[in-house]
C-alpha cells in the first residue's frame, strides 16, 4: 500500500519543511478546525475514534499491515512485538472507555457541548463548559507509539486541531494512524498534521510553538526543560519527563502454585515493546521467605523469556545498544563468578534477553531491550530504600500480590509517591483513564467556563 502524500511526514524531501511551511500548516489546521471540528459533538467523536480503533484490530486493516511490514525496520520492534502492542493499545479505545475518560476528567461527558452539571450533584449548583485548545502541538520522543497515539486521541476528543512533531525516525505509526483517520473521515484528517524533524531544528520548533495554544512534550528531563524555555508563559505547557517502573512480588505469590503465573505475567511486562517504555520494569523486587527463592524466580523468568523469544522475538538492536548489553553481561558474569549474591542468565549467541539476580536492593537502571534485574528483598521497606534515589520518578509498580497484601502494598507505594500501581502483566497496558505521571489527561488540556445560575428571580 502506497500512502498518499498528505502530511508533511509523507514527503520524501525533509528539506521542504521550513518555518514558513510549518506556520502555513498551523494556520490551515486552525481554519479547518473552525470549519470541521467545532460543530462536532462528543458522541460523534467517540464513535469515530472507537470505530477506527476497532478497525485497527482487524488483521486486514491496510494501515495495520503497513505498520507490521515497515515497523520492524523503521522502529526496531519485531512484527510480533508490534502486533501485540498495537492490539493492546487499540483494544482500550472503546466507546465505553472513552466515555469513562470524559466523565472522569470532565465530570460529565456533555461538558464539551454545553454548560452542564457534574454527574454528581454539587452545591451550590454550578454548571460548567469545557473547551479544548484550538491548536495543540505535540512534541514527541521515542519509538514507542502509545504515548503519541494517546495524545492524538485526547486531542480528537477535545476537538482540537493537532500538529504532531515526531522525533527523527519515529513518525511511522502516528502517520499511519492519521491516514486511517483521514480515510474514514477526511475532515478529521484535515485537522491533523504529522511532521518529523530533529530536535536541534529550533527554528521549526519555534514556528510551531508560536502558533500553538497548548504544547505537550515528551522526552528526557533535559529535553523537556529545553522545550519549556521556548514556550511563551501564556501558552499552556504539559511536559512528560523521564520515569522508570519496577515490579514487586510479595512472598505470598511465591507458592509453587502461583509462581509460574506471576513469572509469566512478569515476562510479558519485560517483552512488551521490548521494555522500551517508561512503564516497562527495570527491576523486579522479589520478597524472600518462601522455599521458592528470588534466585529461583530469576531462573524461571529467564526460562520464560527464552520461551517467549521463540514466539515474540526482540527487535534488532543498534551496535551501541547491543554493546551496552554485552558490556553489562561481561561485568555481571565476573561478579557472579566471584559471589553467590549475583547470578546471570542470558540468551545464547545473541543479546535477546538477560536476567541478572542481585541480592542487593539498590536500584540500577537497566539498559533495557529485555535486560532485567531481579532483586531479593526482605520486604517493601527494603525495596523503597533501594529505590530512594528515584523517589518522584517511579511511574508504575507492577504487583505480584493479592488480597490484603495487595492493598497494603498499593497503599504503601502510593504514599511513597508511585503514580500508578497495577498487577504484573499489565504494566504496559494502562487503561484509558490512567493519569499520566499523576496528572489528569483531558482536564489538563481544557479551559473551563463555570456558571453559577442566578435564582428564579
Amino acid at each position, binding site marked *: 500500500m502506497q500512502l498518499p502524500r498528505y502530511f508533511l511526514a509523507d514527503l520524501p524531501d525533509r528539506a521542504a519543511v521550513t518555518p514558513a511551511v510549518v506556520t502555513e500548516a498551523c494556520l490551515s489546521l486552525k481554519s479547518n478546525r473552525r470549519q470541521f471540528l467545532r460543530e462536532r459533538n462528543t458522541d460523534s467523536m467517540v464513535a469515530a475514534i472507537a470505530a477506527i480503533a476497532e478497525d485497527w484490530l482487524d488483521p486486514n486493516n491496510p494501515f495495520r499491515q503497513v505498520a507490521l511490514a515497515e515497523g520492524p525496520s523503521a522502529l526496531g520492534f519485531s512484527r510480533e512485538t508490534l502486533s501485540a502492542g498495537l492490539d493492546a493499545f487499540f483494544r482500550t479505545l472503546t466507546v465505553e472507555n472513552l466515555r469513562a475518560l470524559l466523565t472522569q476528567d470532565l465530570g460529565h461527558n456533555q461538558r464539551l457541548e454545553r454548560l452542564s452539571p457534574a454527574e454528581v450533584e454539587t452545591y451550590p449548583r454550578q454548571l460548567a463548559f469545557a473547551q479544548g485548545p484550538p491548536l495543540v502541538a505535540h512534541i514527541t520522543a*521515542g519509538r514507542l507509539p502509545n504515548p503519541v497515539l494517546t495524545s492524538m486521541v485526547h486531542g480528537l476528543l477535545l476537538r482540537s486541531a493537532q500538529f504532531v512533531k515526531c522525533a527523527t525516525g519515529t513518525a511511522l505509526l502516528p502517520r499511519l494512524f492519521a491516514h486511517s483517520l483521514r480515510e474514514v473521515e477526511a475532515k478529521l484528517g484535515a485537522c491533523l498534521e504529522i511532521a518529523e524533524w530533529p530536535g536541534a531544528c529550533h527554528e521549526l520548533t519555534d514556528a510551531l510553538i508560536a502558533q500553538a495554544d497548548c504544547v505537550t512534550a515528551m522526552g*528526557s528531563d*533535559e529535553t523537556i526543560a529545553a522545550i519549556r524555555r521556548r514556550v511563551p508563559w501564556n501558552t499552556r505547557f504539559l511536559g512528560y519527563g*523521564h520515569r522508570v517502573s519496577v515490579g514487586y512480588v510479595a512472598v505470598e505469590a511465591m507458592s509453587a502454585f502461583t509462581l509460574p503465573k506471576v513469572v509469566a505475567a512478569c515476562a510479558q511486562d519485560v517483552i512488551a515493546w521490548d521494555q522500551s517504555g517508561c*512503564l516497562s520494569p527495570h527491576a523486579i523486587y522479589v520478597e524472600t521467605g518462601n522455599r521458592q527463592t528470588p534466585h529461583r524466580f530469576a531462573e524461571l523468568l529467564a526460562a520464560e523469556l527464552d520461551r517467549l523469544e521463540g514466539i515474540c522475538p526482540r527487535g534488532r538492536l543498534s551496535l551501541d545498544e547491543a554493546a551496552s548489553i554485552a558490556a553489562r553481561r561481561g561485568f555481571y*558474569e*565476573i*561478579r557472579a563468578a*566471584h559471589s553467590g549474591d549475583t547470578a546471570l542468565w542470558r540468551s545464547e549467541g545473541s543479546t535477546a534477553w538477560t536476567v541478572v539476580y542481585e541480592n542487593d536492593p539498590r536500584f540500577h537502571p537497566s*539498559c533495557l531491550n529485555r535486560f532485567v534485574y531481579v532483586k531479593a528483598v526482605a520486604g517493601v521497606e527494603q525495596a523503597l530504600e533501594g529505590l530512594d534515589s528515584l523517589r518522584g520518578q517511579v511511574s508504575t509498580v507492577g504487583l505480584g500480590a493479592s488480597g490484603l497484601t495487595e492493598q497494603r502494598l498499593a497503599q504503601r507505594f502510593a504514599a511513597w509517591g508511585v503514580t500508578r500501581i497495577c498487577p504484573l502483566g499489565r504494566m504496559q497496558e494502562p487503561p484509558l483513564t490512567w493519569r499520566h505521571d499523576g496528572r489528569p489527561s483531558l482536564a489538563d488540556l481544557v479551559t473551563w467556563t463555570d456558571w453559577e445560575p442566578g435564582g428564579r428571580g
Partner: protein
Amino acid sequence: MTNAAEFRSFAADLLAWIDEVEAGNNVADQFPTLAWRLFGLQSECVSTLRDLCRGRGIALDVLRDWRDIPVVPTRAFKEFPITSLSPDHRTAEFRSSQTTGRDFSRCFHDPESLAVYERSALTWFRVAQGLRPGDRRRVLVLTPPKAEAPHSSLVHMFELIRHEHGDEGSAFLAAVDPTSAWVVEPKTAWAALREASDGGTPVLLLGTAFSFVHLLDGRPAGQPPVRLPAGSFVLETGGYKGRSRELPKSDLHAALGKALGLAPQCVRTEYGMCELSSQAYDTFPGDPPAGQRRFRFPPWARAVVVSPETGREVADGESGLLRVYDLANVRSVLAIETEDLAVRRGLGFELLGRAARAEARGCSLMPAAT
C-alpha cells in the same frame, strides 16, 4: 618453578621478542604460544580470572584458539583487584581518569611487570614515530608531571618518553587544579612552542584531546604564527571527558595542524588505557599521507573486534566491540574487553567511540520514551 619464577621467565621471553621487533628482525610470530602460556599462569594466579573460568567450566585444554581466552571487561577493574600480585608486592598502581569520584579502574604492577610495561610502551612508541633509541627531541607534554599525577599510566608513559627522548628544554606544561582537573598553562605552553619554532628545534607535543582544546583556546592573540620545524609531531590521546568543549577529532587535528604549521600526517593519535600495557597508534612511518587512518597494536598485542550479539570476531570492515589481547599485561589479565566500538580494518581497527549508553547515561540521560 614457583609462580613468580614462571611469570619472570615469561617476561624474559616476551622482552626478548620485543627486542627482536625493535631491531627489525624478522622473527616467527610467537603470539599464540606466549598467549597460551600466559593464560595458563593467569588463570591459576588471578583469582577473578580463575573464578570466571570455573564459573564457565573452562578447561585450558579444550580451548582451541587464543581468541577463546576469556576476556575481562574493563569495568571489572573498578570493582576487583585484577592481579596476580599479593597486596604487599603491588609497588605501583595506575588508575583510570577519575571523572566520577571513586569510580575508577585500578591496575597494579611490581618492578618486573612495570619494566615490561615500559619496554612495551616505549618500543612501540618509537616504532610508530620513527625514533631510534638515543634520539633527542624537545618533548612538550600537556599533562601535569609525574609527581602531580602519580597514578596516571599516561603520565607515566609521557615521563618515560621525556626521560628517554627529551632534551634539556623538555617540560610538562599542565598542573592539577584544586578540583583535581588537569589544566594546561597556555601562556607557558605557547612560549615553549614559540621558542622551539624560532630555534628550529623539532618538537614532540604530547597530550590529551581536552588539553589540546585548552591549548588552542588559550592561544595569545596578535602574535605571528608558530611553525614547528620538520621532524615535529603532535600525539593526541583520549577523549574530552567533559573537561573542555568537544569538537570532532578531525576538526581538532586540522586546527592543531594549522596552529602549529604541521602537515596532517604529523598530527597523530594514540589509543591506550590504564588496563593495557601496550598502546595502538594510527600513523606509522611509510603510511600513505592521505590514507585511511587505522590503529595498530604491536605484534605482542592483538585487537579483535567482536559482534556484541555473538561474541565472535566480525568480518573485515564490520563494526563491533573492541577486545585487546595484550601479552605485556603480565601480572593482570591478557584478554580485555573494552567498552569501545571499532571497525575491523585488516590487523588494525578504526575507532568509533565509546558505547556510551552502557554506563555514562544515568537514568535522566536515557533516550526519550514514555
